[in-house]
């Protein structure tokens, strides 16, 4: 455990969160991760609009001039001459890859956030109930989690998505949120259950019960807020997992459908043209790897910052 310097901070009386924030900032890798994540996220959010305002095309614009409907290498224009127009090159239909990567980032981020939220909601509720209620019901609930955890039920999700494609784009996205959220709530449930179990015999819970607070209220208004530490940490770790799952499904053709793009579908397109136009895979792939890389560092850092007792080494 690190020694906290006895400075004026100790006199000010820090909260748990500010402590954690300070620890996080000291972790240079985590900060690096955070910065990259913010940069890519911002670029994905404003990038596509910015590009369409300045350069005039969007991620799905096919050029009118048929000489431009081909895959240019990065910084190359017609006739093989240097050009600033396409820093990441274009795909087979002449669409700018930078715009596509950023637009894909939008989708990847939205899906990851919402699916994580879904998994949070399901997992927290499930785990809190199981942890509080205990006994046979808890046993049963955890057995179900056990068994589901051991199954690669991404397989079932694949069956679901392949066989029941939603007709509208909104429907497709909703299906994706649900499917991805359903895959990742398990560990969240376990964690929350563990936390609840260790908290439920504490005095403030006994007090609440004694004063007649209803069980749902105890669970959701008293226990859960106190268990939030690990929940947040795990949520941060879930985001890259879900992002990866979405990309994986889009790669197989089950996730985002055209004309929308996601990093996974871009990687699938790029892999098709690997032998002659490798940049079509390299840029989306690297961007995704960079994002996941940074998210992992950030998650590690958050975990270290919020749970110093759990720190190893």
């Amino acid at each position, binding site marked *: 455990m690190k020694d906290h310097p006895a400075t004026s901070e100790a006199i000010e009386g820090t909260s748990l969160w500010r402590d954690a924030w300070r620890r996080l900032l000291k*972790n*240079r*890798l985590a900060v*690096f991760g955070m910065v990259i994540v913010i940069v890519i996220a911002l670029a994905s959010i404003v990038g596509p609009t910015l590009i369409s305002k300045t350069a005039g095309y969007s991620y799905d614009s*096919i050029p*009118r001039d*048929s000489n431009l*409907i*081909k*895959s240019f*290498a990065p910084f190359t224009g017609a006739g093989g001459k240097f050009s600033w127009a396409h820093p990441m090159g274009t795909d*087979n*239909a002449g669409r700018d890859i930078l715009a596509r990567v950023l637009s894909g980032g939008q989708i990847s981020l939205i899906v990851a956030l919402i699916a994580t939220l879904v998994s949070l909601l399901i997992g927290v509720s499930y785990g809190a109930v199981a942890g509080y209620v205990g006994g046979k019901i808890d046993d049963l609930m955890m057995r179900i989690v056990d068994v589901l955890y051991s199954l690669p039920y991404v397989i079932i999700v694949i069956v679901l998505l392949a066989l029941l494609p939603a007709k509208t784009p909104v429907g497709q996205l909703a299906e994706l949120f649900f499917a991805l959220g359903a895959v990742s709530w398990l560990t969240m449930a376990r964690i929350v259950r563990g936390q609840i179990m260790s908290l439920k015999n504490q005095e403030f819970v006994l007090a609440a019960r004694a004063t007649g607070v209803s069980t749902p209220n105890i669970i959701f208004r008293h226990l859960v807020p106190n268990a939030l530490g690990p929940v947040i940490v795990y949520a941060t770790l879930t985001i890259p997992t879900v992002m990866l799952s979405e990309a994986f499904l889009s790669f197989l053709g089950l996730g985002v459908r*055209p004309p929308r793009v996601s990093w996974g579908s871009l990687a699938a397109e790029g*892999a*098709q*043209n*690997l*032998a*002659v*136009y*490798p*940049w079509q895979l*390299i840029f989306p792939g*690297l961007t995704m790897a960079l994002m996941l890389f940074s998210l992992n560092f950030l998650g590690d850092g958050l975990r270290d910052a919020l749970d110093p007792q759990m720190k190893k080494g």
Partner: protein
Amino acid sequence: MWDSRSRFATTLIIIGCLVAAGCLVSARNKSFFGQTDPPRENILRYVSGSEPESIDPQIPNNQNEARISLALFEGLAEYDPKTSEPVPALAERWEVNKDWSEVVFYLRRDGRFSNGDPITARDFVYTIRRGLTPEVGSRSASLAYPIKYAQAFNEGGVFVYDPAAKTFLLEKDFVENADQAKAVAPISSASPDKNPAPPAANALADSEFHRFMQEPARLVLPGSEKARKAALEANPKIKAAITGKQFVPVKADDVGVEAVDDYMFRISLMQPAPYFISMMPHQFFRAVHQKTIEKFGNRWTDTNNIVTSGAFKLDSWNHYDRIVVSRNPHYWDAANVHLDKIIFYLLDSNTTMLSLYKSGGLDATYNHTVPSAWLDVIGPMKDFMDASEAAIDYYNFNTTSGPTKDVRVRKALNMSLDKKALADWRHVRPLTSIIPDGIFPGYPHPNGDPFDPEKAKRLLAEAGYRDASGNFDPQKFEASEIELIVNPDSNNVPYAEFIQAQWKQNLGATIAIRIMENKTFFKAATNLDYKGVSRTGWAADYLDPFTFLSIFYTPRGSNGTGWWDPKYVELLDRANRMTDHQKRYEMLAQAEQIMLDAQPVIPLTVGTTRWMKKPYVKGLYPNPVTLHSWKAVYIERDPGKWDYGMPDMSK
């Protein structure tokens, strides 16, 4: 904490490696696409396409099966490696009589099956009759329809027998345009006789069967009651005549093929078919072994049971992986077969194929495996093969329902596409009619409608999609829910998007694209279960314009549009009866004009063959159908004799 410097360093190194790899990829191999070391053994590693439905040469009719059948089975004629015209194989020569009613093939005496049994004329009689048997379910049986009573037998038709007069009713008494071929012009040069011998076919050994063949054609009625009723309603003369008569099913023995003796095979034709000889290399007409089929039934193509007639025999079939064939020692021309083995990989992903080709796992690919988007890079390479192809890309209209039922809508959609732009984008040639040019010299192509978006808009306005002042109203048109359906493919979808953008640009209307998964797509397209346009294509079965025009010969089957015009069919039949080659072409062109006037399709582009072949592979030529006579192929070990660029195609 992990040191940020070493982390930076690691990341930089990795990025550097990737960039270097990318540069390596573009810098290497300027002339050839990938590796050029020949295989150590005398084998050819080819990709034939997706898993064959069957290697029975008579059942499936797709190119992926054809490529394999050509190695395993031998026919009367073979495809010339360079021109795809028929050259003698098991038949040493052939003769056609003056009025194209008979063809005689003179077989070689040393033809052998893979188990040593001799191949005789009787085997060809069996082959053709077996292929036409309805229970066999051949998809290519219609190729044999020019043969007398072949169609009747295959469709389960019946003769009409008069028990009193002990004769059969004759077609010429009831049908208007019965056989009139009495022209005395010289033999059609569309299918050149390699060895023109005196036309004495009729002087050959006569037989009862032959006399039967020479009689005027018998009337044939459909076998099923429902269809027969419809035919009878259509022709009251027949209806009156059939009272008191019996229906006798057409049997295999009635089909007009005959073994005059062991090595003389005679075919009697229902009507002149100048393109008939060019069909002989097709796998449907290749010899199959009667005893094996009769013994094993459906299982006759199992690796343990199969007996073949071609230059190669089947070694193994690993499903969805590869088919291996090795040289057949009993083959009549075994001395001229160069390869010891051919491995046919069963793949359908172009990217995988080309990756394998680049890394040296494949020696050649089949046609259209080079994606259009890669042409900029691959086109200049010396192992890229290209040639005009006897195949077309086009869109079908649903002419039976929806907005495209109106011919003006169809014409408008056709005229509002700039096909030249489409063709330039894909490095192919635009098509205004449906016969590709450059393949049939002397064919007078009719001109389809030119690119004229203004006229298109006027036509659409006429058809009812107009606003108050009589101008074309795109919104009204869009409200008709017209759509373009395609199945997913690396080429189909970009094409569709391009065309959709064209329509949007030239008409102002957005026509929705619906990408349907293969099965759902074929179902909807075949059942005409959509409103608007669907994507399709057609490759020639043989080298004659009729192979394209025959698409609309019947309302179902290959048609796909629901359009059918008896005048069109009549013109085609008349054209086929002509023995003057050029006059025949002219009449075929007239028929084509009728079709173009009705606009059941949007002709788009004619493709080019586009495949890859390693420089050390010789004997494999970029012919119009990309079907190869495998015995001509060999591996050249001397780099001085390799092909740098396309091989010399001159004879």
